Every structure is written in C-alpha cells, then in structure tokens.
C-alpha cells in the first residue's frame, strides 16, 4: 500500500498532483523514469512519469490529467488514501550531459515530466531555456516551479490569455534561430512532440522526446508499448521512455494510442454516470 501524503488540483480540476509515500522508489528514481500505479484490486496498471522525488522523505510526485476511468478513479483518492500498487522506477533515466544551451519544451501534463529533467540539466551547468504552454491560462501548470528549474522561462497560451499568444513551437523557432542550441527536450501531447521534432530537424539540433504508449508490465515483457524508432521496433518501457525525436514514427504512435479508445470511452462514461447516480 502506498499512501498519498499530499494532493492538489490544478488546471481547473482536470489535472491532479499526488505526492505518494514510496521510499524504495524515491531513493532510486532518476529524472526521466516512470512508475506504474494501480489504485485497487481490479484496477488498471497506469504508467506515469514522475514529476519529482524526495529521497529523504521517501516520496514521489505524479501529475496526471483525468482522461478515462482509471485516472478518474485516481482523482477520487484523498490524502491518507492509498494506491494498492506502485512499481518502479522504470525505464532508462534521461542522459544528462553538460552541453551549453539547452531548450526544454513542455505542453499539458508533459510539463510535469519535464520538470525534474529541466532541473537536472540546469544543475549540471547547462543554460536552460524553458518553454511551456497550454490551451488557456487557467490550464497552465507548474509555472513557478519551472521558473525556478530553468534559467529563462517562456510561457505560451493557444488563446493568448497569458504570455505569448500561440504555440510553444513559435517560441522554440525564435530560440533556435538565435542559434547555439545544443539540445531540445520536448515532452507533451504526441502532436506537440511531433511538431517540435519537425521544427528542430532542419536546425540539426538533437531532440529528445518522452513517450507514454500503452503498456502493462513496464519491464519489457508484454511488447504492448512497441514504437518504431529509426525503422526499428523498440519497447518504450525498457528502451525508453526517451527517444531521438527525429527517429520516432509519431503517426504510428498516435494510432496505437487509440487501440482501446472505444472501450475506454464507454467505460469512462459508465463510470461517470454511476458516480453521478450515487
């Protein structure tokens, strides 16, 4: 059992932060790694990349968007409640290297994943520009944390209610044109990561993306999370979750993420109806 010690609602209640007691994982976890969580006996195993860890207090933080039945169920858990299972740390940690000028680009809850990576890249001496975005001002998360984790924070909203009016890629383009960028880390919804990778390609700037495909075990056993990278099949759980964005077949990934969408939609709707009724 893994106890929730802190809970916050963000982005108008669509995004939830849970700080969870998991001392063994917190001690081991490195930026870029993920955990698998399962709320109860009949629950689904949900992979989420960690937003933060505190090895001294033995806690880890996850930030997730409520998108289906399992995350809706997670949302009902209060401080003091428990996840039945938390497994990790899984996946390869981010390769951290002092390169000079680095740009971290985050969209949606991808900002949460980007947070420990940004902080670590800055800590080892990189000059980190961070670009985060959301649809609208009220959906933006972790602004102050990202400001602290980077040397320069730029904010965008699709509707112009805050910061730059437009997409993160608009700002990224400016930064790339200014030159000298050694690495771009782009984490967010698949279309955003694809756009980031397409933008950096002509600049020949190495671009890392963090993928979150459907998976079960997270240890390389099921092969459900296979992604095509440079024409080869890779397992995101053990070969990733981070890959060279210029090599990832994003189209295939987008399709594969839809594998259970009809089942999931029906299941989520049933769950919501049931919750409203009780």
């Amino acid at each position, binding site marked *: 059992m893994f106890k929730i010690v802190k809970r916050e609602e963000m982005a108008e209640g669509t995004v939830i932060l849970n700080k969870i007691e998991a001392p063994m994982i917190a001690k081991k976890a490195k930026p870029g790694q993920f955990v698998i969580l399962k709320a109860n006996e009949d629950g689904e195993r949900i992979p989420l990349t960690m937003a933060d860890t505190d090895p001294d207090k033995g806690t880890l933080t996850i930030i997730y968007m409520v998108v289906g039945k399992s995350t809706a169920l997670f949302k009902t858990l209060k401080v003091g409640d428990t996840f039945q299972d938390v497994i990790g740390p899984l996946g390869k940690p981010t390769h951290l290297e002092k390169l000079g000028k680095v740009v971290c680009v985050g969209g949606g809850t991808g900002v949460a994943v980007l947070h420990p990576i940004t902080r670590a890249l800055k800590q080892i001496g990189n000059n980190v520009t961070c670009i985060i975005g959301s649809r609208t001002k009220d959906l933006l998360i972790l602004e102050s944390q990202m400001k602290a984790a980077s040397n320069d924070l730029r904010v965008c909203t699709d509707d112009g209610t805050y910061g730059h009016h437009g997409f993160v890629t608009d700002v990224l383009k400016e930064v790339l044109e200014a030159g000298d960028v050694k690495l771009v880390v782009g984490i967010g919804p698949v279309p955003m990561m694809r756009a980031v990778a397409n933008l950096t390609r002509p600049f020949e700037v190495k671009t890392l993306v963090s993928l979150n495909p459907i998976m*079960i075990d997270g240890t390389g056993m099921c092969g459900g999370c296979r992604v095509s990278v440079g024409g080869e099949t890779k397992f995101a759980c053990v070969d990733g979750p981070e890959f060279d964005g210029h090599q990832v077949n994003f189209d295939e990934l987008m399709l*594969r993420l839809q594998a259970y969408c009809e089942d999931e939609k029906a299941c989520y709707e049933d769950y919501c109806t049931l919750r409203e009724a009780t």
Partner: protein
Amino acid sequence: MKEKAAKKEKVSRVAMPEQKPEIRRRNFDEVPTGYTVAMAQEEAARCLQCKKPGCVDGCPVSVDIPGFINLISQGDFTGAIRHVWTKNALPAVCGRVCPQEIQCEGKCIVGKRGEAVAIGNLERFVADWERENGTGALPPQAPSTGKKVAVVGSGPSGLTVAGDLIQKGYDVTVLEAFHKPGGVLVYGIPEFRLPKAIVAQEINFLERQGVRLKVNAVVGRTVSLDELFEEGYEAVYLGVGAGLPRFMNLPGENLIGILSANEYLTRANLMKAYRYPDVDTPIPKGKNVVVLGAGNVAMDSARTAMRLGADSVKIVYRRSRDEMPARAAEIHHAEEEGIEFFLLTNPTQFKGDQKGRLTGMECLKMELGEPDDSGRRRPIAIKGSEFHMDTDLVIVAVGSGANPLLTQSTPDMELNKWGYIVADPETGKTTKKGVWAGGDIVTGAATVILAMGAGRKAADAIHQYLTWGW
C-alpha cells in the same frame, strides 16, 4: 504376482470428468472437474507399486509416486499430501500442468500394455482434497539457521526454492516484479487450465510456513542484485523467467490488433480482462482471430480468444502437425473447442486500414524439406501459393527470449550468446558468487516442472553453500 499384475492391466484408467466442449468454449471455468474420492481410490488401485519405479525417474523433482498413490488407495489423503510435499511444494499446480505423458506416466509400467496410471490426476486429487478438507497442518521445519536467502521471481522455480529452503530453516524472501505473485502460473496459464484461486492457495501455504513475499519489486530497477547482498541476503536465486516476447518482424506488425501472447494472456489472466468492464483492463475481442505458433502458449491464447466470443479462431503454424510443440492433450482440447488448424502456413505481411487497425494477413503455403538444426524438417515456401486471410486480431505466440532487465544491470554475471544466464546444470550455480539461477532464464522457454526441477537442485546447492561454504 504375475497374475495380480495381469488382472490389473484389464482395468482401464478412470477418466477425469470434464466440461463438455460446446459449454466450456465460452466460459473460463476449469475444464477437467477432478476425481471424486471413489474415482481416486479406484485409479490408485491400478498402481503396481513397482520396486524400482520408472515413474519416479521420470519426475524432475523425484516425487515418491508409488508411495503417495499407496496412501491414497488406503484412504490416507492427509498422509498422501504430506508425502508429496516432501518433494513438491506445488502439487495442485503440477497435477494440472505437468506434461505427465512424457515424464512419470511415460515411464509407467502399466502404460506399456495399456493406459498408464493417471499420476497427474491423482496428484491433483490429493492437493485439492487437502485444500478442501485438510487440517491446514504445515510440513515439519528444520530449526532456524538465521541465514537470509532472496528468491527473485515467484514463478514455479522460485516458489520451489522458497518452499525447499523454508523447510530447511532459512529466512526466505521472494521478490516479484508484478503486483501479484505466481509468475507464469498467474499471468500466463489461463484460469480454465489452472484456477488462480489454487495458485493463491499454494502461495499462501508457503507464506504460512514463513516465506516472505515482496511484490512490485523489480530487481534490476527497484533494487539491484548487489544491493540484495548489502541488505544481508547471503544467497540469491534468480528464477525470473524468459520474459521477452518474440515477434515475427514482418511488415505491418505494429498495427493495432497484433499482440504478443505475453500481452494477450497477461491482460486475460493477471489483469482478469475477460471480466472487463467489471475490471478496468480491456482486452481486444477479435471476431476472426489468428494465433501464430503451435506451442502450449499458442493453445492457451487460442482457447482464450474462443472464450472471449470469437467467431473463428485459427492456429497458423509453418510446420506440420507432427512438429507442433504443444502437449497432445492441449491440442486435443483446442480442437474439441472448435479451434481450426492452418498447418504448413506462414504469414508474410499484415494488412491494416487507415486507422492503423489490422484487417488481414498475407500467407504462403509451406512444405517440409530436410531437417534443420532443431532436428525438425525445415519448412520451405511453395512458390505461387500466396493467399489472404481476413483477421482482426493476431496473437504472436512464437516463443520468447531472455529479458535483459536484470542481467544488464548485473555485468559481473556471465550470459550465453542469447542472453540467458550461464548456470551449472547440476547445481544452478552462476559465475557470480552467491547467485544461483534456474528455469527459463537459464534454459530458454520450457515447462513448469523443469523450472521446478532446476529450483530443487539449486535449493540443495544453496543449502550446502550456506552450511559448508561451497
């Protein structure tokens, strides 16, 4: 004596009652329903009680088969199960999933002239009897040695090591990467062949004897092998299984609707997705299902797909019936349930629609040529034999490789060229001090009982090492 034997030969084997194919093909309840007390005693009476029993030689864990069968025929079921436990910690499992026909029953003298004594059915009977009627008394245990042993992986070989060493007085902790213990017994073998309540009971039996279980512990990630020694474990047994699914490497293989058997069976068995949406994990329900491969895992996948409501389920295999690796009984059960067999057939590519979903498969007919390295005749494509097969769900069950998660994080342990752990076949000893290994991560994919046999040998070797230092 000769006369007595001759008399017994005429008594035919007591058949195990089972669910009718047309009923069971759509439910997940266990197929064979078990012997009654009368049936068990009648079958037990067929045993000749050989002085030099071949059956025991045929058993990878050397269960005293005539001994426990004799106790059954005397009606002493408690005595019988205790007798089995001295050699086998998982009799309810072995009675169900061992390939007895090539092991104990394959060497049974009664079987030379007729049907072998139904040793598997009898083993299952006493284990079930104990579970339902037993006193719950535990086997005797040696005084504590005060020494800690870690077992990595809670599949059949790990559980065997745990059961053996707890009885020898060790402090045993089993680490399991999944959220539930049992390994392949829980994620791989379906409910209709091995009810999960029975696996849970066998594991509970080990826990009651003092075995500690840590789930969600991914050795190689959550904790490293060296850290286990730092935590005070004096010996470690690695029984992590093969655990790396093989794919066909054909065009279109990443279409939605193509799953490894590992994924398909894990969804169905571990995650109980056949009860979706009562549980939260979904499973693809194909109308025209194709299973690639013809081993036991392929049969399990095909029979699961049928139970999930498929209109048709086809086994597609590139060799002929004679080369199919599955147990004869499993093939028979699958056929009875309406699974079709497309033998000497090999897929060449998968076809999908615009949404990336599988719609069909291109195939070639094959013929058998000269024997290959495996000694089986090599399948050769027949020119111009291309044909199309409609399918919306393909389950790839063509074997598995060595999962590198643990071994990659343990560079000072020798692996062979396929990534399996190098271990002494007699003792399971690896090239890393204090570390033993057995089961599929040493041999490649094999059977439950062979993994248990490896566990037994390793447990003996660990006991010697911790007692004498070698």
